[in-house]
């Protein structure tokens, strides 16, 4: 399947060059950071042997349905996100239709909405006292649900649709970048050979975009797997929820950790599947001849259909939820709530996520670059392990971090007291650093895969050429890799920033006294059943995330060079 214009790089010769100790150090540091909570998790699972006695019960009554529901949820969300993501990405890169330039970046916006907020909003909107049913009753004279049927989002189908509406942009962004890069010459060659638009998509576009699809899809599936807020609210008995009830109702943290370890196996399977899906072959597109694809202008009614197909996800995933929040804010006069405290929460959220984004990008760049050098074979699997941080449910990850971080804190505090007579308190947890560390562990994989996808565009032969010209490791990194992968790296940083703003469980568990972020404020209102009162904070989370999402969509890798 070596399509014209793509170079098969699977069998590249081993590279010469000195291993950079700094790179290896960064990789080890990143790996250790990710492994820290996982090790704590495994230790917890093994800590209480008596916890093993709950397995017969779990195996008989909990796991079968939890596994089935989780599989169904993953399959549904994956499929729907892939269809929406790939479909819209293909449309906006290959065709021209009314609204296309705006839709191209609008399609990324649902990313700014946390799944739990979207879930709350849709339950309200579709609920009995929501605007739709109220209008329906006013129109028809029906009085109660005994007179008519109305779709209820509080089930697995609702969860699939709602989560796909929030998560499809991962697929959209990654495949759009690739569709945009596929050089016009491939498409022209295919057309010359008589391929229609359908064949072009199935035989050329999709196969070439397979690595990008897999990368986006894995993010979608991992997000689905670790979600707790939306799935619990919508009543899906997922594996993650089973971990919670085992921990909280049976008071068995060890048992919960054991289920979490089972879940890690699912994650491993996902990651291995992604690698398989990508195939052993990797394609580097020769950048010099990548002329942008000439978009074909669509006529009505096809043009109208294309506009609709691209507008619908934006409408359902971003516009309607935003409109709902704005209406609630106006109706309840919540703007009066806008005070210094809210701004401070915004500041905290931006500071925590921003710091994490910087660290993740730096680590991600180092790890991706080191893996690319490919001198140490053990590096690549280590980089994959980073994905685990993303897949573990947030609270489990936070618990896993809590134990080692608190141990470090206590050692530091005791040392400070002993040597200097200082009462430092808990430095990491007391300062918010613990939250930043949690974000880094959680989102490191975004940094690595973002940089990797940027670097994958650069043929390794260019590295070889640079080396042949006498450039050494750091110089190649600085003068070659960094400029070429800058766009993708910045995109990854933004993604981490947006994800950090939305992150809830680790922020909740690891933050210091008196520190609230927007997400914890929304949660505080929601957990006493007054979600609407947090509408302003929810809107701020989304607005703070919208701007980066917009930049992300506008300056995607395909827009550069």
């Amino acid at each position, binding site marked *: 399947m070596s399509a014209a214009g793509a170079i098969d790089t699977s069998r590249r010769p081993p590279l010469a060059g000195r291993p950079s100790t700094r790179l290896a150090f960064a990789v080890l540091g990143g790996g250790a950071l990710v492994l820290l909570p996982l090790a704590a998790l495994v230790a917890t699972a093994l800590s209480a042997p008596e916890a093993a006695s709950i397995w017969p019960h779990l195996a008989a009554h909990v796991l079968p*349905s939890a596994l089935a529901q989780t599989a169904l949820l993953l399959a549904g969300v994956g499929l729907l996100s892939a269809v929406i993501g790939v479909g819209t990405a293909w449309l906006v890169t290959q065709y021209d239709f009314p609204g296309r330039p705006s839709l191209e970046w609008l399609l990324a916006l649902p990313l700014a909405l946390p799944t739990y907020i979207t879930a709350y909003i849709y339950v309200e909107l579709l609920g009995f006292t929501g605007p739709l049913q109220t209008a329906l009753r006013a129109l028809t004279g029906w009085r109660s649900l005994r007179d008519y049927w109305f779709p209820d989002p509080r089930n697995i189908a609702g969860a699939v649709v709602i989560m796909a509406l929030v998560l499809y942009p991962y697929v959209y962004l990654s495949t759009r970048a690739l569709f945009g890069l596929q050089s016009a010459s491939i498409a022209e060659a295919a057309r010359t050979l008589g391929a229609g638009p359908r064949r072009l998509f199935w035989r050329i576009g999709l196969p070439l975009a397979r690595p990008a699809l897999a990368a986006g899809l894995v993010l979608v599936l991992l997000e689905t797997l670790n979600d707790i807020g939306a799935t619990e609210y919508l009543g899906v*008995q997922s594996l993650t929820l089973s971990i919670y009830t085992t921990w909280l*109702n049976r008071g068995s943290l060890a048992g919960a950790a054991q289920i979490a370890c089972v879940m890690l196996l699912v994650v491993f399977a996902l990651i291995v599947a992604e690698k398989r899906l990508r195939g052993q072959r990797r394609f580097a597109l020769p950048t010099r001849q990548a002329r942008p694809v000439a978009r074909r202008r669509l006529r009505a009614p096809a043009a109208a259909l294309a506009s609709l197909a691209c507008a619908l996800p934006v409408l359902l995933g971003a516009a309607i939820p935003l409109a709902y929040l704005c209406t609630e804010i106006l109706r309840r006069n919540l703007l009066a709530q806008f005070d210094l405290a809210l701004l401070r929460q915004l500041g905290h959220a931006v500071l925590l996520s921003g710091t994490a984004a910087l660290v993740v990008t730096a680590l991600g760049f180092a790890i991706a670059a080191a893996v690319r050098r490919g001198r140490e074979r053990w590096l690549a699997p280590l980089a994959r392990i980073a994905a685990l941080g993303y897949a573990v449910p947030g609270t489990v990850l936070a618990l896993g971090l809590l134990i080692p971080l608190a141990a470090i804190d206590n050692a530091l505090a005791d040392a400070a007291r002993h040597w200097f007579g200082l009462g430092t308190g*808990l430095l990491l947890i007391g300062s918010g650093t613990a939250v930043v560390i949690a974000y880094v562990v959680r989102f490191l994989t975004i940094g690595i895969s973002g940089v990797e996808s940027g670097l994958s565009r650069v043929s390794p032969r260019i590295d070889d050429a640079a080396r042949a010209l006498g450039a050494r490791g750091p110089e190649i990194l600085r003068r070659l890799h960094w400029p070429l992968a800058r766009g993708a790296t910045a995109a990854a940083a933004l993604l981490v920033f947006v994800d950090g703003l939305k992150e809830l469980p680790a922020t*909740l568990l690891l933050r210091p*006294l008196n520190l609230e972020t927007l997400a914890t404020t929304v949660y505080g209102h929601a957990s006493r059943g*007054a979600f609407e009162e947090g509408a302003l904070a929810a809107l701020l989370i989304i607005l703070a995330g919208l701007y980066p999402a917009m930049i992300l969509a506008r300056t995607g890798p395909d827009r550069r060079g």
Partner: protein
Amino acid sequence: MMIGKKQLSLLALSASLLATPVLAQSVNLYTTREPALLNPVLEAFTKDTGVKVNAVFLKDGLQERIRAEGANSPADLMLLVDVGEIDAAVQAGITQPLKSETIAKVVPAQLRPDDAWVTLTKRARIVVASKERVAQDTITYEELADPKWKGKFCIRAGQHPYNNAFFAAMIAHDGEAKTETYLKALRANAARKPGGGDRDVARDIQSGLCDVAIINTYYIGLMSQAKNEQKGWFDAIKPLKTTFAKGGTHVNVSAVALAKNAPNKADAVKLVDYMLGEKAQALYANGNFEYPVNAAVTDSAAVKLLGPVTPDTISLSEIARQRKPAANLVDKVGFDS
């Protein structure tokens, strides 16, 4: 390129910006209660005593955090909801006895078992019914299993702590076998899969999805005050006088416990005493329509709206002991699926 100096200094900067200045006179409170419910009382306390309260609102994992923070934990008090959670904290060994003259005077002994923790407020878990479609005004919990409610009963997830404690009380009364039969019958009567929150059941009664449902009393109060569509949910329901067949209503508590390594113990006890006072009890309990533990507060908002409640005689500690069996039964009968 690993973490550069710039990133490190940013980290340090963020650390210094976020660090909480701990005042000389302060109490550190770890709470699973939402800040909006607590802030009025805490602000009043600071105003009256000059002692500042630093709070962190946690959900799952409060216990694990205090345990992990160990000897250097800043936690003085933990404010918890649900007897199961409180009992778990005591079992985990992260508390110490909490005693004072005020506590002994105000709180009945069974609401502060062994002085391990102190009840602040009570809430009952009762049945509400459709005003339109249900005639009766009293009901027993056991009666909900009657087939006459088939397809007419709504409840949140059986694994939710509120239901967990309720089912645990059922086990304490009737034993596991009878409770299993009860849960099966309850599930068979359910109009929809158990889930959502307590307020959702009121909405589902308004919509005609169900006729009877289980709810915590304070939600009824909060909906009665709502200025939005929730007022409509409230208008559609009526609270039934709910008891076990043997009498007594299932009551749960919100409570406070003293952390084992509390660095500001004296001020912490001062805060507990304050919260038991009539002024704070009125603020705290009425703000959330809970039953005050201080008997001197007779005209609480909850009593005004729902009337007084006679608690079940089963002790809270016994309920806590039956939590695990209750959780197992819920799984076994497939209550939530």
